[in-house]
């Protein structure tokens, strides 16, 4: 068996047998990798808590036919800052859930990896309601489905001639008052989404939480769900607002 070294983020884990786990990772060099961590569920495991979702690791692994085998692990970024806050934790999990659906087995995706590592660090150091929506929009853009935000996808008219009032997932862009279909979108939410996709991510992250940032979140979630063609489980959980006030 070939031994290889890579860095990766744990996307999710599955129990395997009595004490093992299958770890799904997005690695820097090998794309999405599934690996067995033997004995990890025992309290005396040498892997300890290093192979939990959201851990950013340096790994030594044996290459297998279907499943690789984790041999050694070192922590690069611990998810501790996310584990101390329920909102940050669910936001982190919402990002890895998307990555799990977007990344392909053993298809290198270095850009996606860098985005994920960056977004998880941002979530830990300067949490904002826009970290997850911004991550979703960036993922979509890198997948080649950057939305059209400056002119109507129906008639092509741009602002200020057109008043852009709607967003259509199928067309992948905004619509003017006369062409409108899809879902309504406010000019504030459009402004923030343009900042995110137009190289002003840092300024966007400073936006205080408002109905517009919430709208950007719902729009980004709808767009990513449309792209991966399924509902996100972790998003449904915290956006339903079932947490105590």
């Amino acid at each position: 068996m070939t031994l290889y070294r890579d860095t990766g983020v744990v996307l999710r884990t599955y129990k395997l047998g009595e004490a093992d786990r299958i770890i799904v990772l997005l690695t820097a060099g090998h794309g999405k990798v599934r690996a067995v961590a033997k004995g990890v569920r025992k309290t005396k495991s040498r892997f300890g808590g290093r192979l939990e979702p959201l851990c950013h690791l340096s790994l030594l692994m044996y290459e297998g036919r279907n499943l690789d085998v984790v041999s050694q692990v070192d922590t690069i970024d611990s998810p501790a800052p996310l584990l101390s806050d329920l909102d940050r934790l669910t936001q982190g999990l919402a990002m890895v859930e998307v990555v799990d659906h977007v990344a392909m087995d053993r298809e290198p995706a270095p850009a996606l990896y860098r985005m994920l590592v960056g977004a998880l660090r941002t979530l830990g150091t300067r949490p904002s309601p826009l970290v997850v929506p911004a991550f979703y929009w960036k993922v979509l853009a890198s997948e080649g489905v950057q939305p059209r935000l400056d002119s109507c996808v129906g008639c092509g008219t741009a602002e200020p001639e057109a008043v852009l009032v709607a967003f259509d997932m199928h067309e992948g862009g905004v619509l003017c008052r006369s062409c409108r279909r899809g879902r309504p979108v406010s000019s504030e939410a459009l402004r923030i989404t343009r900042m995110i996709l137009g190289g002003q991510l840092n300024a966007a992250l400073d936006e205080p939480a408002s109905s517009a940032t919430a709208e950007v979140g719902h729009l980004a979630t709808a767009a990513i769900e449309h792209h991966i063609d399924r509902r996100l489980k972790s998003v449904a959980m915290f956006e339903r607002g079932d947490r105590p006030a």
Partner: protein
Amino acid sequence: MAATYAPPVQALIDELGRLPGIGPKSAQRIAFHLLKLPTPDAERLATAIVDAKAKVRFCDLCFNVAEDLLCGICADDRRDATVLCVVEEARDIVALEKTGEFRGRYHVLLGAISPIEGIGPEQLKVRELLTRLADASVTEVIVCTNPNVEGEATAMYLARLLKPLGLTVTRLASGLPVGGDLEYADELTLGRALEGRRAMD
């Protein structure tokens, strides 16, 4: 190639494959093992399953496994009614009881919050927990969920939910495994152990 097993064999494999931790290969292996067993042995296993399902139920109060309306712990008057230990599964009660350190009662959630699996508080026995706490006899809740991402999410959710009720909410200190070397402890465990440090007397 499609499955070519006789329908009863395939049904057995399918049922076994639905058990936790058992994949299709293991299900096949166990199925053929069972087929080779002497008939009385196989019947004993079948009876044990049927009996357990018929006689064992969940405790009305804490959702521990019980043979009656209440489990042995809820029915025991000598247990401290002011402290409640919240666990994910009934088997965690067994582990905690073995320590002999805890004299209060339990509440089993029957799972943990898992955003990735879409399991939220409403799928767990959280509403029932709130109902139990309503009569104010419980003053402290110890959250004993697993020290992993799901367990942490559950603990944080419960802390947020219970603190406004004026209860003392504590979390099981997750320290270093006894018998392990400090240098092998991972950062999360070590950080947790530092947080949960206590004065030495």
